[in-house]
């Protein structure tokens, strides 16, 4: 049930990609309609038929997308939503009711994830999006073609950043297969002086943050850094594992706040909010992340021993 529903969600998500491709082709003001359409078309195909295409074929398709992105031919076009006067007028006419569909996405995603575990939060997010679309359609009495128009407009303005989280997951898998983590852990482990607890604590926290920044994911860093640095330089000196363990993990989260590799937390939101600087979210987070990381070193040294 869950996997069938999820597969339907993937097909619908793929259709958003296909629709962006069609709109890019039709857009007379688009600088590179064919290449942009190819990018989103291929993306849509990997979503709709991904389950049935052999892995290496998908791999080749991804390379083609990579080339299109690298030569800078995947662009936002000239699609425009309603102008400001119309939006103001409609905001006055619809009133605060407009928040109902906006809240529906999150509330349904939450309710399904929480109370219907058989379906899960992902199906919930999809269902929330569909229900919210229906409510919005009824409320605004908008034309049906605006569903694909507005979806395509936003996907084109998100740009290639939209596929980055999936690609980074694939990169993580390749790094794992190649054993990158072990090399890093042994590298850091080699420079820590033996018998100095503070040095071990600093190395454990920094190691978590740095390796998380490389992998884009603290969960991926935790086992590697705990085995390579935590065990010989922190736990071996009688640390309280309950305290030190969770602090090491959240020290990694400080790294997550500072890396473009955590694209789903940092790069996609920037694209979603249409920032000028793609690293805007990271820039906003960096001061707090550094302060938190230093705090982690202090907490681990004082509470952990």
């Amino acid at each position, binding site marked *: 049930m869950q996997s069938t529903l999820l597969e339907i969600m993937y097909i619908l998500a793929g259709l958003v990609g296909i629709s962006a491709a069609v709109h890019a082709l039709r857009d007379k003001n688009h600088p590179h309609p064919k290449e942009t359409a190819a990018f989103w078309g291929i993306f849509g195909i990997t979503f709709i038929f991904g389950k049935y295409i052999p892995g290496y074929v998908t791999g080749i398709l991804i390379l083609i997308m990579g080339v299109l992105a690298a030569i800078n031919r995947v662009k936002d076009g000239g699609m425009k939503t309603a102008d400001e006067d119309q939006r103001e007028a409609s905001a006055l006419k619809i009133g605060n009711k407009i928040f109902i569909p906006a809240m529906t996405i999150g509330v349904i*995603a939450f309710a399904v994830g929480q109370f219907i575990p058989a379906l899960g939060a992902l199906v919930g997010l999809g269902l929330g999006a569909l229900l919210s679309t229906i409510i919005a359609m009824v*409320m*605004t009495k908008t034309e049906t073609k605006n569903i694909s128009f*507005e979806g395509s407009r936003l996907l084109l303005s998100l740009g290639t950043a939209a596929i980055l989280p999936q*690609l980074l997951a694939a990169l993580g898998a390749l790094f794992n297969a190649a054993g990158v983590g072990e*090399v890093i852990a042994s590298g850091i482990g080699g420079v820590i002086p033996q018998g100095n607890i503070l040095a071990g604590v600093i190395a454990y926290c920094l190691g978590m943050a740095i390796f998380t920044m490389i992998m884009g994911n603290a969960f991926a860093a935790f086992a590697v850094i705990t085995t390579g640095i935590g065990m010989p330089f922190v736990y071996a000196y009688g640390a309280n594992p309950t305290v030190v363990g*969770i602090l090491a993990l*959240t020290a990694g989260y400080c790294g997550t706040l500072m890396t473009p590799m955590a694209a789903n937390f940092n790069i996609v939101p920037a694209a979603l909010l249409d920032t000028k600087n793609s690293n805007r979210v990271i820039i*906003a987070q960096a001061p707090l992340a550094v302060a938190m990381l230093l705090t982690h070193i202090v907490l681990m040294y004082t509470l952990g021993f």
Partner: protein
Amino acid sequence: MIRLIGVLIILIGFYKKYNPIAVVLVAGITTGLVSGIEIVTILDILGKTFVTNRYMSIFLLTLPVIGILERYGLKERSVMLIKSMKSATTGRVIIIYTFFREMASVFGLRLGGHVQFVRPLVYPMAYGAAEKNYQSVSEDADEKIKGISAAAENYGNFYGQNVFPASGGVLLVVGTLAALEIEVIPMEVAIAAIPVAVIAFIYTVVQSVMFDGKLNQTLQKNKIEKGA
């Protein structure tokens, strides 16, 4: 050591601002090749992981409705709503959202998200508060409001989640340490996560108050006279 070449490519690529997709693909394929993995296997890992991680892009389904709501004045309405609240400031919107986001995550509720809440609600309100307090919001200020709005979601989510004993992070710590023959209890690990959750919220408050102060400095001249 040669296996770290992918990491080096990533660092240089992101620093030089090359297209991130190209950088990631080159880094992945090079790492695979220097580690002696066949090119077909590399492509296979790439393709299979990409497809199994499609769930990361389910949010595409929310784009049409967000676009439609924006077309019909969602952002404009948020500005109107926030303008009716007298003491609203950008920093306070950020503090309130972070608080609710963090509490939700402490109780294991997956209530939040950049797509679900930040783009449709938090950012428009944070922006609306600035528009209310200053006659015009500069592009630079708007850009920074976007940054801190997205950041609030991450702060609340990251530092609150491990206070919930059944969270992925707590279970990962318990499981990893168990594999190293160290036994810890989920409930105690969750309690140990409380100091970080509290401190992160305090830092968020400090950052938000400073953010309001900066807006006051840069946009002060435009401040609307009270009662005018």
